[in-house]
């Protein structure tokens, strides 16, 4: 049996906006699940309904087999974490970490013991008497994490906790958070719009758009095998390249002809003829003098370990991941080929994956 179950969960705002439109999801004990989607997709409203901060319009929340839909937040044993950054500057590290326990009216001895435990785990022991401003940025983050983790609820709910951190701090924090979650085995539901965080943290990613779940799967599944065009575009930075065109049968084999491009591309799978969208990741494309796609480089974006060449042609626009040393000038004519095994096909009308 799953630990947390969302059963037809829906929320309609008084103005008629359908923020969440019937979400079904089963989460196992100890799992780290990330709700991923753009602003307004319903991910935060879903999280708040799990916490009991919003009342669902319909549907149920089951926690440990118990229907908690009508229970107030205080009786659900969930820890809700908003953002990790805000430490109280006038309190010591120890007082900061103990704060949630003080609010929960835990006796002093237990409080001290709990703070000591989490401090030992995160290597904060020597810092306990200090004030936040005396600490380095990295240490401040570990204190904030310690404060979030000093209580051990049945369920952690996190709403974009890394949102306000500098980009280079986020990676560190992801690592720390994941390591702690694995050690503590606390079931976690985490909300973000940042696919990079989702890839790094999740056992399973739940991709949401317009109040609905589009796909649930491991980070690599949603990345490699997107169920819809939306998921294909949303995951990846840059997202999956998508070419509109047509699947045809030519001399006994299935080929794809993109709109505005002359050369057919042989498909590795049997696909039904008709209008189709061909998708492939930037890392599945490469510059190749013999390649079927001809275009011009419009932007060469260096990314350190690699570079992305943005290429425009009759087919539209695609990104190609190249080695860091393959510098290119805007306007350069190139030809591109695509690794057959990485080709994905989508229905032009419904946007659903067909092959």
């Amino acid at each position, binding site marked *: 049996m799953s630990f947390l179950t969302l059963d037809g969960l829906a929320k309609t705002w008084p103005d008629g906006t359908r923020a969440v439109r019937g979400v079904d999801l089963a989460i196992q004990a100890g799992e780290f699940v990330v709700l991923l989607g*753009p*602003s*307004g997709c319903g991910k935060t409203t879903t999280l708040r309904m799990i916490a009991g901060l919003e009342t669902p319009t319909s549907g149920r929340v089951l926690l440990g087999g118990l229907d908690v839909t009508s229970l107030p937040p205080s009786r659900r044993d969930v820890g809700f974490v908003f953002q990790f950054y805000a430490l109280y500057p006038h309190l010591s590290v120890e007082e900061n970490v103990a704060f949630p326990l003080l609010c929960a009216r835990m006796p002093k001895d237990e409080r001290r013991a709990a703070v000591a435990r989490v401090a030992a785990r995160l290597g904060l022991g020597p810092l306990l008497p200090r004030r936040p401003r005396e600490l380095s*940025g990295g240490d401040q983050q570990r204190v904030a994490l310690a404060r979030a983790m000093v209580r051990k609820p049945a369920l952690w709910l996190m709403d974009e906790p890394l949102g306000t951190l*500098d*980009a*280079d701090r986020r*990676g560190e924090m992801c*690592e720390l958070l994941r390591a702690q979650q694995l050690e503590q085995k606390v079931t976690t539901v985490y909300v973000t*719009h*940042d*696919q*990079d965080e989702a*890839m*790094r943290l999740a056992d399973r990613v739940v991709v949401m758009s317009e109040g609905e779940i589009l796909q649930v799967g491991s*980070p*690599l599944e949603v*990345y*490699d095998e997107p169920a819809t065009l939306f998921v294909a575009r*949303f*995951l*990846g*930075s*840059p*997202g999956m390249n998508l070419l509109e065109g047509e699947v045809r049968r030519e001399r006994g084999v299935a080929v794809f002809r993109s709109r505005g491009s002359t050369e057919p591309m042989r498909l590795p799978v049997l696909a039904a003829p008709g209008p189709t969208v061909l998708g492939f*990741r*930037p*890392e599945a494309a490469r510059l190749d003098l013999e390649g079927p796609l001809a275009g011009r480089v*419009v*932007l060469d*974006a*260096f*990314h*350190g*370990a*690699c570079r*992305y060449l*943005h290429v425009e042609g009759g087919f539209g626009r695609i990104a190609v*991941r190249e080695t*860091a040393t393959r*510098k290119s000038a*805007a306007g350069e004519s190139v030809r591109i080929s695509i690794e057959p095994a990485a080709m994905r096909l989508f229905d032009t009308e419904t946007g659903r994956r067909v092959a």
Partner: protein
Amino acid sequence: MSEAALAVAGLDKRFGAVHALAGVDLAVAAAEFVVVLGPTGAGKTTLLRTIAGLERPDAGTIRLFGKDAAALAPAERDVALVFQNFSLYPGRTVRENLAFPLRAPGRGLATGEIAERVAWAAKLLKIERLLDRPARQLSGGEMQRVAIGRAIVRRPRLFLMDEPLSNLDAKLREELRIELRELARSLGTPVLWVTHDQAEALSMADRVVVLAEGRVLQDAPPEDVYLRPASPRVARLLGTPPMNIVEVRREGGWWVSADGTRIVEAPAGSPERATIGFRPEHVDPDGGATEGTIEVLEDLGPARILVARWA
């Protein structure tokens, strides 16, 4: 080279005990896209505000297109400043918001000219279909497009951008990064762009100026800053994950780490001790003399990161 759009020399600014800018030199050439990269508190925003004329420097000079800016009021500098926290008139339409900077007294633009420029900016930023909507109905990304549109309509000679993408969703940030880089190129207007996001700096900049604690640590093209960092500090600021840094000593023709592990061969004539840095993508996990165990494996889609421990 033609005259620099912007030349800053020895710029110094203190706020009480905080030394926000400690002698900053930098230049932006005509049509150049320069990104100032630094952590929070590096002095990036102070630098932009000083160039825009919103702060007065304690020392140093700012030259804009060959003229000493000290003599110019903010309005006379002909630069456009775009902030992270953009402000629009919420009740006014996008069209009115875009036209507003053009109606300022003293501009004396004809109505036809104003309409033309608004239409031009709206097309460039792909917000034509939003022109008659009140600003308050826009999404965050749409609002930032309008805010940038308001800077563009004036056709300033220099753009100063203060983390303009930081408040946007990750996906939107990535799209606008690409779009705005192309837009800057097509306009040919020089840009000084400030950010803490290294992906923005590396992918957008002609030149990256790394700033920390009010000082310039390095000023070079993105490839150089990444592959030939001027100091371990710069090396650690860039790359996800950042550069590996190891303290080594020379022993029998090898660089060895503190625990005696051979890292790489030491060229003849190397010093006794050194700090060496190498990027994760330059490590070959399947070859070489250094043994280790994998502790963490992160699959990120296009790349896989191994965290290994040796010995």
